[in-house]
């Protein structure tokens, strides 16, 4: 089995939201409200239990790459399709007490809907704020990396429908190389703030969703330096057991005095 990954490129995205529609249709996801956000053309706003692809619309007072129009009053509109990162050290997977969240043969992180009991611990354990509990259903859901399609040798629905190949899909090595090459190409063409967003240097490790970003990750609501919560297990447990032991010693002293 190949270890697959997404690479999402905002310089190719036209903001059509075909990925959002394809994901909803293929996975049979319920709608999550028809509300106007007032935030550019983004009325989806965030990833959630029923939204596994989300197209961000960034309006920024900056020039887009080599753009020369309106040099004194720059403006750019950046689109990027966000998705579950499928982390190597996944907070949700570590937190899940039932074993409902598993690692698949494609190295993706998958929630088994027939096992999840809706404890909600994964929700607070995702450093990217991806997974959520569906209120009417009670279970937690997120992107499956189209496990069913990949199992059948097919490309995930979002990547398949993307009309501009802004969402690329392939082996993780290939995607990492393409991200590097594309960033170099963009910089050469004047996109001086283009860079690859990759958590590989953090405790989260390699992710199976790579992104090219223009400008700071904060503007995309991407954590600049995410941490896998499990790295704090040892220090937290040590402190807990030491506190409990001290507490017991105090009790013994109080009763023996």
């Amino acid at each position, binding site marked *: 089995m190949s270890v697959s990954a997404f690479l999402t490129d905002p310089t190719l995205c036209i903001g059509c939201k075909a990925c959002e529609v394809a994901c909803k249709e293929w996975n049979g996801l319920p709608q999550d409200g028809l509300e106007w*956000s*007032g*935030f*550019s053309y983004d009325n989806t706003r*965030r990833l959630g239990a029923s939204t596994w692809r989300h197209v*961000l*619309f*960034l309006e*920024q007072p900056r020039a887009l790459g080599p753009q020369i129009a309106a040099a004194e*009053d720059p403006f750019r509109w950046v689109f990027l399709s966000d998705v579950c990162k499928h982390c190597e050290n996944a*907070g949700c997977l*570590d*937190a899940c*007490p*039932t074993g409902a969240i598993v690692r698949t043969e494609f190295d993706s992180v998958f929630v088994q809907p027939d096992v*999840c*009991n*809706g*404890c*909600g*611990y994964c929700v*607070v*354990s*995702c*450093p*990217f*704020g991806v*997974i*959520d*509990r*569906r209120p009417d259903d*009670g*279970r937690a859901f997120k992107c499956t990396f189209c496990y069913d399609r990949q199992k059948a040798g097919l490309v995930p629905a979002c990547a398949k429908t993307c009309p501009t190949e802004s969402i690329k899909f392939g082996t993780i090595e290939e995607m990492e190389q393409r991200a590097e090459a594309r960033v170099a190409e963009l910089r050469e063409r004047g996109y001086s703030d283009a860079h690859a967003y990759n958590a590989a240097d953090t405790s989260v490790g390699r992710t199976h969703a790579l992104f090219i970003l223009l400008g700071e990750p*904060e*503007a995309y*609501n991407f*954590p*600049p330096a995410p*941490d896998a*919560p*499990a790295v*704090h*297990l040892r220090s*937290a*447990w040590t*402190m*807990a*057991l*030491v*506190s*409990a032991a001290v*507490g*017991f010693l*105090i*009790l*013994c*002293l*109080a*009763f*023996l005095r």
Partner: protein
Amino acid sequence: MSREANPRSESRLDAIREEATRTGHVAGSGLAASASPTPSSSPAAGYYGLPLLKAPVWTWEVPLYFFAGGVSGASTAIALAARIAGRAPDLELAALWIALIAALICPVLLIADLGRPSRFLNMLRVFKRQSPMSVGAWTLAGFTGVVIVAVVADEAMRAGLAPAFTGGVTWAAEILGAALGLVLLSYTAVLLGVTAIPVWSENRRLLPTHFVASGIGSASALLELFGFLVPATQMVGFIVSAWETLVGASIELRARAVDEPLRRGRSGWAARAGGTLAGPVALLLRIFEGSSPGGRELAAACFLAGALITRYAWLWAGRASSANPRALFDLQRQ
């Protein structure tokens, strides 16, 4: 609506046309529609200020469980300490009963909070060291069984049923019960500390000391309210209230941005009210009115109320923290 032209807009349009004709370019930032702020996505504002993290989905049952689990776990530790000292057999039995009743309430609260309560048994489907919730679920299950044995054996021993055997079983069950109880008492701090929520994660070293002091203090205060106004519970009351005072003072004096939910808004007021009741109020009552039973009972009641309120404050603080991407960016850019 009148269809007559607005003279101000008309003159502005003429000016734009004139400027465009003359220079081939129009300067100025354009017009903002009334009452609609121009949205902007920037490193400072994040993505339109929308939350990056998901809010905790836990409801009112969970803080109440933290409280009940703390009382239950700490009560077994008190029972064992009393047994080792050998001076307060009635208090020991009462503590065991409190531990048992509180332990039986815990699973009800936890199951009610699940999205799929009928699947509660899935909690014991696997054991995962890396999941504090899995460790906690197994601890609670084992602890409850051991406490049932301890209560039955202790009662049987007191009734004179095979005292040598039931006495031995009581010792074993109380030692194991206290060990598991101390884990039950403190693991909830790990549960919160090992998450992506900044205000919990950044307090992962403070939380265990707070939860342990709060749990032991609550169990001791409950015993006092049941009439065990012994010197030991008074001394425990002094120490835990002093510690809770220090915890509150450190949150206030360090004044970290990440702790803002503990100082502002609903969660901030709850944290301050709970911390004050369990800390300085209970401490001063013990210092000045500690010689009278009424004063001690009032101190115990204040501590219990404070401990319960602070558990809610921590959940609410987590919600407020998850909604503030700014605090997370600042932390990660440090």
